[in-house]
């Protein structure tokens, strides 16, 4: 059980050593992240200059949603997505064979290899936005809130990991999967706003197909005191099912993988 975490620590250290060689990238990332944060905040303020609530969310609460969105983008962008791109590249180039011959579990290996540390800038920015939102909401700190938020955030991340891995696994069968990945990333943008405002068909898609709802809206709900214990239990159940299904499909996919270099 501890082994994946140890492996992650090891690979993270290598990634960090690799990336600190290119320090200019840090400033470029700060610039880019601030730009998109600025754009997002301007739009938010324009919307709230015309209305004081959107689907039942006040401005401070929506700021919290946006904070979670930025935070989650940073987490996925630094920890999950780079691994998925590397994995798809490996399948295409035939390098996956080397991974398969290693004594560790292949799914673990391909999932923890890369950490794009500069993308963690978004995690910091997201936390800052969240901090401002929490102060504005005048939230009273409580253990239950902190726990519910942390738990839903982690489960949201795990769910996104599952969906992104499932999409990447398709590269066992199809060569051009990156368009699908790009599509999922742009659909993730819908998470800037609480999924409750979207029409039913879109909300269902954003809940179960690409779990933006669980990844962003539910943690924000936890933070704003909207989360019921039932929803928390449901999220947990859904996360476990998604993990098991992803694992099964991964194994099935591997059986179908014939190797590109062989």
């Amino acid at each position, binding site marked *: 059980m501890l082994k994946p975490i140890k492996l992650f620590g090891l690979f993270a250290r290598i990634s960090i050593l690799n990336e600190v060689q290119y320090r200019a990238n840090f400033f*470029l990332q700060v610039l880019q992240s601030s730009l998109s944060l600025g754009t997002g905040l301007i739009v938010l303020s324009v919307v709230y200059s015309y209305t004081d609530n959107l689907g039942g969310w006040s401005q401070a609460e929506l700021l919290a949603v946006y904070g979670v969105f930025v935070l989650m983008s940073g987490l996925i962008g630094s920890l999950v997505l780079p691994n998925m791109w590397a994995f798809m590249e490996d399948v295409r180039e035939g390098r996956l064979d080397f991974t398969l011959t290693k004594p560790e579990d292949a799914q673990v290996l391909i999932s923890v290899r890369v950490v794009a540390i500069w993308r963690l800038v978004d995690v910091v920015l997201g936390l800052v936005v969240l901090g401002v939102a929490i102060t504005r909401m005048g939230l009273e700190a409580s253990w239950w809130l902190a726990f519910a938020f942390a738990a839903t955030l982690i489960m949201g991340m795990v769910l996104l990991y599952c969906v992104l891995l499932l999409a990447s696994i398709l590269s066992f069968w199809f060569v051009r999967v990156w368009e699908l990945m790009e599509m999922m990333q742009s659909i993730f943008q819908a998470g800037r706003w609480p999924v409750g405002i979207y029409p039913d068909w879109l909300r269902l898609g954003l809940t179960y197909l690409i779990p933006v709802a669980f990844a962003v809206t539910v943690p924000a709900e936890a933070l704003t005191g909207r989360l019921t214990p039932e929803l928390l239990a449901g999220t947990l159940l859904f996360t476990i099912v998604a993990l098991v299904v992803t694992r099964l499909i991964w194994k099935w996919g591997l059986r179908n993988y014939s190797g590109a270099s062989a």
Partner: protein
Amino acid sequence: MPRVQGFAQRVRTNLQVYAVGARVAILERLQYPLASLMFMVNVLIEPIIYLVVWSSATVAQGGAVGGYTAGQFAGYYIIWTFVRQFNLAVGPDNFNWRIKNGTLAGELLRPVHPIDIDLAWNLGFKVMQVVYWIPIGVILWLMFKPEVNPEAWQLLAFPIVLLLAAYVRFFVMWLVGLMCFWTERIDSLIELYFAAELLFSGRLVPLEIMPAWAQNVAGYLPFQWTFYFPIELLLGRVTINEFGIGVFAQVAWILAAYVGIRLIWVRAVRRFTAVGA
């Protein structure tokens, strides 16, 4: 190609280039229908998000926000999706990629200017995009019930403005792309460019409901002529005076960008041969 060439001959050659380039792009799109569909979803998710956001805001405000009803917002963003298919252009990042992997070196050897290759390819790409758009447009129309009431002249003027909008965006982006000849670290510049476009073109929010400072800034930039102006025209919210000013601005931006490309291209290519291969 012979050095001395009649004008008619030159026009004919150019048209042939466009026809062939467009056909290649069309065939490419047909080859990967699923990829085209996913690209479409990429393009459409943005307006749908903002359509829903503004509709919710009008509901909360009991009818209208900043002079737009829910139906007009729906109209705005559905026309947006149509205009978007036309103003798709060759992004500056594409230049970066072509320089880095050497494709451009090959393109420079051809007797045709790379901008002609791009124009031709872009044309075919747009044709296919519009074809793919039709069913989606119909569905969006039925789903969101837009209010679109153009007068006859606005309807007739729309194709002209749409075409000009497409070429404003194409030429300006091509000009920005030329910066890639001078620096490899163009990503931030591109991000800045797109952030400016998002805010000052009417892409995210109709310019009329942006704060005054943003509207002022937008006046000095080409972006509003590529989204906001054609959309508002078809919505029926543009007066004949504004139409005149808009077309003038569009033509002026196309000319300015064209002259800019002409001036910079020579220097850029010289730089490229100095650095490349």
